[in-house]
Structures are given as C-alpha cells and as structure tokens.
C-alpha cells in the first residue's frame, strides 16, 4: 500500500496527482470466506480492520448493499465523547477515546480528530447536582470531567443567551475537555483502505437477502450477487438490523427510527466547543468549513425513510434558537436524515446469538459514531474468539429478559420517547 505523507504528496504533484493508487479495490464477491461482515458502515469496516490486524484473519468480505460511507457513518454529526455514568458504557467509550487519539497515525489517514471538548448545559440546581454526580462517576472511571459554573460557561461560550428573562437560564454545565469531533467519511475511508491492504474484500452494491443455516449453525449468506459461504457472519447493519433479524426469525429489542441533522451556511469561527441544551434535545458544533452543525430529537415514529419531516426540525431548531438567538439569522444549507437502531435501554448490543457462528452488533441509537473504533475492536474479538471481550461483556442480547439493563438516561424501554 502506498503510504500517505508530505513526501508522497509532493512526489505525486509532479505527475499532477494522476498516479495515486486506488484507496481500496471494488471487489467482486468470492464463493467462500472465513468471515463475512454484513454492512460497510463504520462498525463493519472497523471490525474487518481489527479482525485482520489483531486476529490475523484476512479471508474476510465486507458486504455492503450501497457504497462505503453511504449509511449513518456518513450522515452523523461526528460527536465523540465518553461522558457516561454506567461502567459498561464509560469503560467501553473511554477505550474508544484512546483509539480515536491515535487513529490518524494508525490508519495513515487524516481523520481530523478535533478534541475541542463538549459542554452539556445545566438549567437548574437539580441538574447541576445530577451533573456533579455523573462527573464524579466519570472521574472514578478515569475519564476527564469538569463541572463549570455559569461564569465559566460564559467565558467559554459567550454567544449563548445569558440574559435574565430566558425560559431556561444557564446555571452551569458539565464539560469533558477531551471529547470532540472527527471527519466521519474519513473514518470509513481510512478503515476501508487499511482493511483492503491486509486482504479484506470490500464488496459494494451487494445486498444480503437471506441466510443459510443448518443444524443451528451458520453456513453462508444469500445476496443479490449470489450465494456466499462463510464460517462466521457478523451483522453490522445499524438501522437495517430488524430487517435482517426478520430473515433470521429473530425479534430484537430494537426499533428503527429516523434522526435528522442540519447545517447552516458557513460563518466565521464562533463556537469552539460542542454544546448541548440541557432542557431538551439540541446540540451544536461548528465545522471546519464554518457551518453550524445541529441536531436533536428523533422524528418520533418508526421510520425507514432516510429522510425527515419538518415538525421535528422546527422543534429542534426552536430549542437551538433559545440557546443561541443568532441562529435565527442564519440560512439553512442542508438537512438530512439517517435510520437509527434504537435499543430499548439506549445502550448497544455486541454479542453472540443462538445461531452458532452468527454475531450481532446493533442498538447504537444516537451515538454509534463515537463507538466506531471500540465497537470494531470488541466485535472482532467476539467473532475471532467466539466469546465476548470484557469491554462488551455488558452489551448482552439477553440483558432485557434477565433485567441487566444499562439504562443510561433513565428513559426506560422507550428510548424514542424523549
């Protein structure tokens, strides 16, 4: 594989950048693989990368129905954080933070990781107390957390509405300074390029339409481009999980819902951090191009549409304007949506299934982008060793029937009601 560096950039400048190697090959599917990963999003590609890198399994195909980067990996608002209270989530996402910090070097691909810090605003004394508790839990797990008072928030984000007559005055906030953002498509491309260089077949425009199972054991998959035999199969299809589960006669603790995001026209640098509203669901950061990147609630009813509806966008932006009144003056550049695998406790599932050789990775809800490296790392381990890694041991499929829920937000079983 051609290494990307300043030197290679200069060298290729002499040939007008016409001689760059392709970043990954567009493979036709072979008849048989050791491992087939379904879904060429961030999680599927990261899983293939770690299977090859850590477990030396390279006879792998990543089967993607569309193109690499066309799913949620290319649709999210790129927030990366580990400000969780429960151990299962905190330790898993903190492992992710470690992997994010070295990802550009590891992948030899600039993923533009920008640890600019995230601030969750508090709008009451009770919320400040709850944040103090969460911050302390984070620190006990070795995660950085700083409780900010109103003045400290004002220093960091003066553009927020600090006037006296607002409906939800700002009391302070909880900050994770090491949190941030990254270039989402670069993450998909970087993993795809490295996986390809280690021998992984990246098969695009190939839809999985069924499974071949006999005696409780996976034998292969059926696709729009023919049958493929496989010893092991891993599902990484995010918002399409319930559709594939139906082909397997499985019913999962998941519903598919739509999440929208939008960006404004670009403006000069104004917002240095990721900031979230504490009295509703709205968050905002500023992209390198200067656009305000914004998102919030789900559309609120089951949807596979991959496009959103205006009432939710209006609701979310109303919250945004309450926080940042200047937003009302900006023009909206783009809005889009992605379909989300909403689990019933808001936490993910990375586990084996009752079918031997079939592994499940799903339930990422609003936050699966930041999970990408840790998810790939632990899912690869689960597949290669046929047992869960200690970091995903809590993300069990059967935790709902055994009562071991990881109910981070206290939303109960309807994480789509918020």
């Amino acid at each position, binding site marked *: 594989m051609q290494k990307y560096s300043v030197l290679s950039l200069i060298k290729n400048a002499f040939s007008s950048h016409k001689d760059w190697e392709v970043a990954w090959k567009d493979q036709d599917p072979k008849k048989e693989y050791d491992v087939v990963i379904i879904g060429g999003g961030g999680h599927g590609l990261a899983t293939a990368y770690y299977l090859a890198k850590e477990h030396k399994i390279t006879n792998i195909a990543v089967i993607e129905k569309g193109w690499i980067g066309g799913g949620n990996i290319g649709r999210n608002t790129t927030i990366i954080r580990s400000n969780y209270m429960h151990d299962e989530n905190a330790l898993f996402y903190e492992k992710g933070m470690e992997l994010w910090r070295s990802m550009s070097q590891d992948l030899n691909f600039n993923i533009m990781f920008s640890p600019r810090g995230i601030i969750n605003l508090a709008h009451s004394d009770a919320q400040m107390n709850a944040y103090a508790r969460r911050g302390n839990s984070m620190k006990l797990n070795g995660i950085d957390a700083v409780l900010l008072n109103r003045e400290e928030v004002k220093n960091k984000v003066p553009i927020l509405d600090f006037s006296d007559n607002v409906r939800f005055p700002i009391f302070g906030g909880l900050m994770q300074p090491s949190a941030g953002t990254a270039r989402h498509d670069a993450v998909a491309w970087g993993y795809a390029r490295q996986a390809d260089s280690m021998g992984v077949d990246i098969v695009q425009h190939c839809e999985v339409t069924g499974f071949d199972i006999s005696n409780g054991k996976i034998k292969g998959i059926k696709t729009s481009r023919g049958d493929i035999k496989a010893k092991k199969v891993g599902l990484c299809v995010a918002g399409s999980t*319930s559709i594939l589960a139906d082909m397997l006669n499985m019913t*999962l603790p*998941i519903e*598919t819902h739509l999440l929208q995001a939008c960006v404004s026209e670009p403006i000069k640098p104004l917002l240095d951090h990721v900031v979230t509203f504490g009295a509703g669901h709205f968050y905002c950061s500023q992209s390198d191009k200067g656009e305000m990147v914004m998102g919030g609630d789900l559309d609120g009813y*089951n*949807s596979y549409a991959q496009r959103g509806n205006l009432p939710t966008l209006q609701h979310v932006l109303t919250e945004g304007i309450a926080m940042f009144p200047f937003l009302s003056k900006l023009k909206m550049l783009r809005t889009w949506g992605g379909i989300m695998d909403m689990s019933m406790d808001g936490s993910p599932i990375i586990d084996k299934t009752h079918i031997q050789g079939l592994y499940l990775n799903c339930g990422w809800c609003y936050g699966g982008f930041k999970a990408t490296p840790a998810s790939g790392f632990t899912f690869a381990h689960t597949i290669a060793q046929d047992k869960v890694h200690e970091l995903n041991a809590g993300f069990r499929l059967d935790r709902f*029937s055994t009562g071991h829920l990881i109910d981070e937000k206290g939303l109960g079983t*309807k994480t789509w009601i918020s």
Partner: protein
Amino acid sequence: MLYIKCPYCGYRSQNEFAYGGDATVKRPELNKEVTDKEWDNFVYLRKSPRGKHLELWHHVSGCRQWIKVLRDTNTHEIFNTYKSEDKVET
C-alpha cells in the same frame, strides 16, 4: 408533515398527535402467571417492520382518544385509521 385521519375528528395535522408505538403488542393476561419470556416479548421485543405497521397514536391536542393507524414505515403512506377497539387484520 403527516395528515392523520382521526376516526372522531377527521384529518388533522401530525402536530396534534403523540406516537404510541406498535399496536399489535399484547400485554400478558391479567391474574395469570407471566413467564419471563412473555414479559420480554411484551416489554422489549419489537418486529419493527419496513413496510406496513399498525401503530397507536394519541390525539393528545384534539379529542384525546387513542387510535390505531396502519402506516408504511418506508413511504409514510397511511392506508387506514381505526378506533382503538376496532379489530384490525394485519
């Protein structure tokens, strides 16, 4: 914007309704021993189909009745709406 035909009030904007989820889920019968499996099915497990979905909506800013809506989760087409007590074949 969805336009939902409330069986009591007629066509109303989506903004007047709150969503209530899959309407085909049945609570295990009262006064009977409930197995963990039955409880799991009722509380947590959902088919979440792509296509026709029978679901509950609450006309919360209108007549406040719960209704059933047969909607396509891919196209958002609403095929029909029903009173909550209506039996619907799916």
